[in-house]
């Protein structure tokens, strides 16, 4: 992680910028930057990390995951680790949800097959 990224993340997770970010979404006239267009890549990166830390603080407050703690948010490497784990977890959950939906649709289309135990998982078309 280079020095610039460290600085940007330190700003993004600070109380000051989190409050300003929150205010900029609801209060007209509160702007994060002096420019309204033509954002630098640093500004875009900063916006990304503002939204990430906002999400992490919200999930921490809701005790959403046993592995998310204040110490994790304070540590950039541990935060990266948690974000990767979280993506994998939600990716797995999303795939399972889709499979359950498809199974349910298939069951409604072919009720007799399900009752007779003939239903085969391979018949469920995940492409649609």
């Amino acid at each position, binding site marked *: 992680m280079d020095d610039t990224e460290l600085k940007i993340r330190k700003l993004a997770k600070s109380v000051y910028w989190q409050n300003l970010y929150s205010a900029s979404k609801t209060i007209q006239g509160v702007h994060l930057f002096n420019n309204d267009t033509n954002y630098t890549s640093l500004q875009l990166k900063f916006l990304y990390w503002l939204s990430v830390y906002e999400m992490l603080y919200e999930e921490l407050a809701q005790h959403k995951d046993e*592995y998310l*703690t204040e110490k*994790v948010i304070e540590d950039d490497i*541990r935060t990266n680790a*948690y974000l990767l*784990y979280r993506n994998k977890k939600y990716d797995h959950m999303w795939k399972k949800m889709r499979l359950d939906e498809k199974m349910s649709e298939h069951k409604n289309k072919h009720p007799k097959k399900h009752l007779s135990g003939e239903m085969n998982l391979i018949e469920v078309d995940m492409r649609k």
Partner: protein
Amino acid sequence: MEFNDELLQDVLTDLETLSSNQELIIDNKLPFLYEGMTYEVRMPTQRDLVKAESVRNQKFVELIKQPNTLRTKDLIKVLKDNQNIDILEMEKQIKELETQERDLYLSLAQVKDGSEKTIQSFKDKIVEVKNKRYEICLEKVSLLAVSIENQCRDEYYRYLTSVCTFKLVLRDEANNEEWKHVWNSFAEYDNEVNKIALVALGQLTRMLIQV
């Protein structure tokens, strides 16, 4: 909350860091100091970007007419055939190290607070794998730097640096200041002997292509 000297010092340090780092994001300019002078690089306008593309294309045409210049894919072949340097193998190693790094991150994510030794051990391994990956990436970039595409890309950013860099100068005897272009033309930038040309280039790329 008890308000003591240590806490006060922490708050002051944080405020100082906050104000010094804010220059990175507060607007679409990046100020910097060099040899006692204040400079800034500004985001290029659409016109600057169009002109930079034109400069890149001109460089491309110039280079393909010259002998002993190679496109990236040809340079990769020459490196393999003549120097036994396998760029594709390097790319494969980079991908493997990325996978290793990912697996280490996933393991670290599931270590709870309190297991400080384990946490530190994973962090050390991640840094080790990252550094190995950067080493190979840097070597690959350095080997391919002379390709036509990379020379054209460098020309593109050098042009943008020449038009987007300003310095703060005194306007009059009343100590009023104003921002002025450092170089009046790309040719002038090209002939610059001072390191400011490289420093400004670094700042511009920092502003434009931080990934």
